[in-house]
């Protein structure tokens, strides 16, 4: 068996292991091993590559890998779980950037003489997708990190200008490949295309608001995979194509789940700067009477019943009150109350974010239920405790005339008692009032989530 054959077979084993690793992510019980299997797959692919190629000097390899490993390792160790969306956003960008650079270096290696070939098209696709992913992800990172405004940034002719840039990339790419008899320096045009792709990544991302970032980072995740596949086509390297396709598929699936959770189409997220509440009367928001309660009353409502469902929203994470919430849940269970947690798909700032935050607070994963699993249980539940969530439990979604009509919501208003812990009656991202707050069966527990939760822990402990 030739060495090349052995290397290709190693790539095949690596691709199979990637699949196997992802398959083990289908259950929290096996997921950790799955991640390890994927890491082994990556090691195998890298070792095979190093063996097979007249590669860089070891010094150069070590420099690159050391810089990346130190930065990556420290980030992985130090990142707060609330900041996972930013980290994933940043990493999407590095994935896209690395793939774009692979295409760029290949283009330079062959002196820009591509012609209209698969090779040429793949290189241009790699630069386009990789470039857009890189700069778009940097904007998403800055927005999520709060280093840049989370509000949509719009200007006249935005979409037209984006379309023109996209067309320019196609025309220039064709010219680079010799279409139309262009005989100037392909290198110059290539840098222009690279620059336009980077600008396009920025202009496509800035009009998207902070609340839509879960969709954007999922989509960029998908792009980072597609950029990897494009790099795979550049080199006709099968393990790159397979791994890129897996990431591309994963990202697009999550994108669709996030869109569905917000009841928005992908086109609407990408092009419609959200906040379309014009025509809705905002003057009456928060003006109707509510029943408010203090910690002792809430404790009594929760401590003497059979079943409680807790609905955590992003407000909980912002207040860092997950640990206090878990203590409340534990204390109620000690009293014999059946406690479950209902997690809406867009409860956090990225797919599955709230689940990680609760896992970090030691809430067992078999107590966490997603919307489809738990929505029919609310009507047989004694009390619901909603912490820092708003739009995801607004019954207006059932009204066909509402701006959030059709958005999947948790049926908290069907429970016998709803307790809403919130700072004020201010509206959520949708900008509309929430009828839940004014229902007879609802108690409003106003205050900062962390302090209120601490008070509630104390109050539940003091129950007879």
């Amino acid at each position, binding site marked *: 068996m030739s060495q090349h054959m052995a290397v290709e077979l190693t790539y095949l084993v690596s691709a199979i292991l990637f699949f196997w690793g992802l398959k083990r992510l289908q259950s929290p019980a096996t997921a950790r091993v799955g991640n390890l299997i994927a890491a082994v797959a990556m090691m195998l692919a890298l070792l095979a590559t190093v063996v097979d190629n007249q590669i860089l000097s070891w010094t150069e390899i070590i420099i690159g*890998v050391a810089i990346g490993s130190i930065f*990556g390792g420290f980030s992985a160790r130090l990142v707060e779980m609330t900041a996972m969306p930013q980290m994933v956003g940043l990493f999407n960008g590095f994935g896209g950037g*690395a793939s774009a650079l*692979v295409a760029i270096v290949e283009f330079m*290696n062959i002196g820009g003489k591509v012609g209209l070939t698969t090779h040429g098209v793949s290189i241009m696709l790699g630069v386009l997708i990789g470039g857009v992913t890189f700069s778009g992800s940097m904007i998403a990172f800055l927005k999520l990190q709060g280093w840049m405004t989370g509000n949509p940034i719009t200007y006249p002719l935005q979409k037209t200008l984006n379309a023109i840039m996209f067309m320019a990339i196609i025309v220039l790419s064709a010219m680079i490949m010799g279409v139309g008899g262009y005989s100037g320096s392909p290198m110059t045009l290539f840098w222009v295309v690279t620059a336009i792709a980077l600008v396009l990544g920025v202009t496509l991302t800035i009009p998207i608001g902070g609340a839509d970032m879960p969709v954007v980072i999922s989509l960029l995740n998908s792009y980072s995979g597609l950029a990897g596949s494009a790099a795979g086509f550049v080199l006709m390297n099968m393990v790159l194509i397979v791994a890129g396709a*897996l990431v591309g*598929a994963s990202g697009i699936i999550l994108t669709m*789940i996030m869109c569905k959770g917000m009841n928005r189409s992908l086109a609407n997220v990408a092009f419609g700067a959200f906040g379309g509440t014009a025509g809705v009367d905002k003057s009456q928001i928060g003006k109707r009477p509510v029943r408010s309660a203090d910690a002792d009353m809430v404790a009594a409502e929760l401590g003497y019943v059979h079943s409680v469902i807790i609905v955590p929203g992003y407000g909980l994470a912002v207040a860092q009150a997950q640990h206090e919430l878990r203590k409340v849940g534990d204390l109620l269970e000690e009293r014999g109350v059946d406690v479950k947690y209902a997690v809406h798909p867009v409860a956090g700032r990225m797919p599955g974010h709230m689940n990680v935050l609760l896992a970090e607070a*030691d809430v067992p994963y078999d107590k966490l239920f997603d919307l489809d699993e738990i929505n029919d249980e609310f009507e047989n539940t004694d009390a619901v405790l909603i912490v820092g969530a708003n739009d995801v439990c607004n019954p207006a979604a059932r009204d066909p005339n509402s701006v959030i009509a059709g958005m999947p919501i948790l049926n908290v208003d069907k429970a016998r008692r709803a307790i809403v812990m919130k700072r004020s009656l201010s509206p959520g991202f949708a900008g509309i009032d929430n009828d839940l707050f004014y229902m007879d069966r609802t108690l409003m527990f106003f205050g900062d989530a962390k302090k209120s939760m601490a008070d509630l822990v104390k109050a539940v402990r003091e129950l007879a």
Partner: protein
Amino acid sequence: MGETMGPLLIGLYVFTLATLAGREVITKVPPTLHTPLMSGSNAISGISMVGALIVAGRAEGTAQIVLGVIALAMGAINVVGGFMVTDRMLAMFRKR
């Protein structure tokens, strides 16, 4: 044409089938693991390191080598950071 179609078609087959098979596997990942799925796929997209090693290995100019090393570093951030942070998260998921 015949000579270049061969590898392209194989590549397209591989890409399409991997996407379809990937969809089957990933649709069954429960929502509770979607964040680790994303950070894990960050790590997998670090596979560009393989591409970086190949192209930079062929490179002759200094510029290409520098860009190749940058690509390698970016990929390594994803691989090391992605797998480590995913492991850190998955370690927190526990049953009662």
